């Protein structure tokens, strides 16, 4: 055949070398057909390792090679680049995984060595049948879609827009701002959240490169890296954005009072037509159709009559907007754990048990109490406050993971309570987790301020007094694990630091964009260390708490990273597509068209002469569904042809059919 194959076995430090008898595998490889060199190396992926490989390719005139090392997920691209540099087609190499699927899963040296031999033989047999393949290059649409208008989406949008590229920012709510818009101060510097966020929100609205689609949701997405077609449904606001001045007369006159989510059950009502909050962007009202009298009975229209600029349009219909974008950043954020699920904590039964977000609103100077800390009756001031960490986190009954930010915002609460009221603060924690710049120092500051830190998970919050001093109080029943005893702490007010959960509809978002979720429901990144904002789909990135609990600092750095990744694709102008695609052998095809219906990417359609299907190579992802389903075996996939796979199996079973 005249092929000159090199086999290279990597030690991966001790990862592989400790479990395999590498020498035996190297010697064995020499006996395989067409192999002219077989070597081992401590770290093949290192510069030295690659240089050795390059030298062999040059000196020995290798035409193909096999790398026996880690999973192809890790370094297939690395070695393809090596091949390319030395003038070998990058598809004339085969990676053979002897780490994840071999040395990491056993301690039995003999078995592992035998398995490695079989895997190397399979790889050699396979690579002999490889064909050189050429990548496809396609243009990248320079526009970016960002889904979610919280701090992550806002930050990423500004980064890309400032670089001079167009951004569509889609936000489901009537205003952007996300959870951060609810906050008063941020830990550990106690900076004002609004002062950081509001200018950014304003810039988004004004930016010539950003199209803000608020009150909108993505309904479908088609296409591939560089060329996505996205459909967005914009819900009717019933207010004309171009004529509305945001004067607020409509919401003054509106007769319908609705409990306000932003005010979190604290003496808070809004109207059916309302501006979401004071610094909302865009700052024009929205009619809440569910509560509006007009939509229930066809009467009222008071807002319409009173509007000085005639901006109310109650006949407005939803709009379907089609966008063409090259990259997508998903920044859909999180939801908070519903404390009703832990019924022994009494949220919803005891009026003075608050959630973290309710308390954030209370601390906020623009919130329902104007920043004053009061009990639910909005009058009495608490003299003692309990803050309970890990409500729904680090708990096998609910979420096993740590929500990461609760310790720090609980400390922030303690600080602000001390600053504003001087009330006694009891902080119930399991472990105090303060890893971050200035975080631990913040914790020490609070210890010195006289906050009572009690280590133990709260068993129950009750209103049943056992002793006279507990009368009229909420009593925290807890095992103090440092004292090793049960304690009962009577307080006036309780704050539950609830867990961060995946957004309530994250499953739907994942399905829509083809993202993968971890077992907790957060979106999975391509690689936990090296590719934290990419997803398994090229051109789709994730940022912020949709990927896992994180604070503002981390969210912003991730949003910046996602923006940088998108920009790096945009400036490349072209994207390289994997040439591993399916192709049809027309002479075998019966024209049954089974494949067209099964293709998950819509890549197969009726060809020009309307008799046989044709595969669009750009849309095809090489998944192989059509290959497996074709009753005539008329479809093959490049790099996974029957010949190649049979040859690999022959190698594995070491039956030499010699071609």
């Amino acid at each position: 055949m005249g092929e000159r194959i090199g086999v290279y076995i990597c030690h991966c430090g001790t990862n592989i070398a400790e479990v395999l008898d590498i020498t035996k595998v190297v010697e064995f490889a020499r006996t395989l057909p067409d192999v002219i060199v077989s070597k081992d190396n401590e770290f093949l992926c290192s510069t030295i390792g690659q240089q050795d490989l390059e030298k062999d390719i040059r000196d020995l005139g290798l035409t193909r090679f096999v790398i026996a090392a880690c999973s192809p997920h890790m370094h297939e691209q690395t070695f393809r680049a090596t091949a390319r540099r030395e003038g070998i087609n990058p598809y004339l190499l085969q990676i053979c995984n002897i780490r994840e699927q071999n040395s990491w899963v056993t301690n039995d040296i003999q078995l592992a060595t035998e398995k490695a031999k079989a895997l190397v033989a399979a790889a050699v047999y396979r690579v002999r049948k490889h064909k050189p393949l050429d990548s496809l290059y396609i243009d990248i649409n320079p526009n970016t879609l960002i889904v979610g208008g919280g701090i992550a989406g806002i930050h990423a949008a500004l980064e890309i827009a400032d670089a001079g590229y167009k951004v569509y920012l889609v936000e489901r709510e009537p205003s952007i701002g996300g959870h951060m818009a609810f906050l008063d101060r941020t830990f550990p510097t106690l900076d004002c959240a609004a002062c950081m966020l509001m200018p950014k929100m304003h810039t988004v609205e004004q930016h010539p490169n950003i199209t803000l689609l608020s009150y909108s949701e993505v309904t479908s997405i088609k296409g591939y890296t560089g060329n996505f077609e996205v459909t967005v449904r914009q819900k009717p606001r019933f207010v004309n954005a171009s004529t509305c001045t945001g004067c607020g007369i409509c919401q003054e006159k509106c007769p319908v009072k609705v409990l306000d989510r932003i005010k979190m059950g604290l003496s808070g009502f809004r109207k059916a037509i309302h501006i979401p909050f004071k610094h909302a962007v865009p700052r024009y009202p929205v009619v809440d159709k569910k509560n509006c009298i007009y939509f229930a009975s066809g009467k009222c229209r008071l807002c319409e009559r009173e509007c000085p600029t005639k901006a109310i349009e109650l006949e407005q219909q939803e709009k379907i907007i089609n966008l063409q974008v090259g990259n997508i950043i998903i920044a859909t954020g999180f939801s908070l754990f519903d404390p009703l699920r832990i019924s022994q904590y009494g949220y919803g039964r005891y009026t003075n048990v608050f959630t973290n977000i309710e308390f954030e609103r209370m601390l906020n100077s623009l919130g329902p109490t104007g920043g004053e800390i009061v009990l639910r009756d909005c009058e009495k001031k608490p003299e003692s406050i309990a803050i309970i960490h890990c409500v729904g986190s680090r708990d096998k009954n609910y979420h096993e993971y740590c929500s990461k930010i609760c310790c720090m915002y609980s400390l922030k609460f303690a600080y602000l309570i001390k600053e504003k009221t001087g009330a006694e603060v009891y902080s119930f924690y399991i472990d105090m987790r303060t890893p971050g710049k200035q975080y631990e120092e913040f914790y020490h500051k609070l210890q010195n301020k006289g906050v009572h830190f009690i280590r133990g998970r709260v068993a129950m919050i009750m209103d049943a007094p056992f002793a006279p001093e507990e009368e009229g109080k909420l009593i925290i029943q807890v095992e103090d694990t440092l004292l090793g005893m049960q304690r009962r702490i009577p307080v006036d007010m309780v704050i539950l630091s609830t867990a961060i959960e995946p957004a309530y509809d994250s499953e739907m978002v994942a399905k829509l964009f083809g993202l993968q979720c971890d077992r907790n429901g957060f979106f999975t990144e391509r690689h936990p260390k090296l590719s934290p904002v990419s997803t398994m789909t090229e051109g789709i990135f994730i940022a912020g708490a949709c990927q896992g609990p994180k604070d503002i600092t981390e969210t912003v750095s991730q949003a910046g990273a996602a923006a940088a990744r998108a920009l790096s694709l945009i400036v490349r102008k072209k994207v390289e597509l994997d040439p591993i695609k399916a192709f049809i052998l027309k002479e075998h095809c019966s024209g049954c068209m089974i494949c067209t219906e099964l293709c998950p990417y819509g890549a197969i359609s009726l060809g020009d002469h309307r008799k046989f299907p044709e595969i669009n190579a750009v849309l095809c992802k090489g998944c192989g569904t059509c290959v497996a389903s074709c009753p005539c075996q008329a479809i093959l996939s490049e790099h996974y042809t029957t010949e190649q796979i049979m040859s690999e199996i022959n190698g594995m079973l070491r039956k030499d059919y010699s071609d």
Partner: protein
Amino acid sequence: MIYAYYPGCCSESLSSAYDGSLKLIADFFKIEFIHLSDWNCCGATEFMSVDRLGAYALVARNLALVPEGLNQVVTCCSACYLNMSRTEQLMSEYPIINKKVNTALAAGNMSYTPGRLKIRHILDVLVNDVGLDTMKGKVVKPLTHLKIAPYYGCMLVRPNMGFDHPEYPETMDKLFHALGAAVVDFSLKAYCCGGHMPQINAVTGYEIIRRILKNAYDKRADVIAVACPVCQLNLDIYQDDVNKNFGTTFNIPILFFTQLMGLAFGMNYAPLGFGKEIISAEYALSKRLKP
């Protein structure tokens, strides 16, 4: 609906009101109970802490008595329920326990295969098998105006029996709502009633009982409803002692939930076992319920 029925030691004596009323309720909903013959004590709380294997064998003997063809056994006592559930679970999970227990049973020509029976509490059966909707349709005298504190005690839902929340159960709450009663939010609903503590250390026992009574009293409950004979016993017969010890004036009748169900379904007082309680329910019921 057919179930095997394990009455437990209290049913014929201390809690005959429970046993009697639940039989009426069962007949009312056409539930057939097959009584175990020659059953023995479940070991209560003591035996398990003295000799575990002996206790498991004692319980397993009752399970072995359940006739073939039945796959559910019902009990009305929370302690019996816990002991039976625990034994069944341990025998299923640990082959060594299963083997030892069955060796003991073999001495009496008996055997029990773990997994054969599902252990059920009567509260679970009534609320979840009969169903609240069916019950609602049968209410002829709604318990309107009667404020009930539902008391579950510590053994009914713990460690996690599956049919209700182990820390803050609500099955009885839902039941009484369905019967038209007002249910108070009762913080100590799943706290311990003291068990046998009043006999071991009276003052400690009284304090435990006092807390529960006070919580119900603070919530303005007319009656406390229970689902366990020991809870009824402790809260009822020691109420006077608690009052003497702590200078309190509690006078809250402690009734089995099945008795109150019977009232709602229009049954008469006497057959439901009213009058057997120490703190008479007459006043509370006559004041709140229409004749």
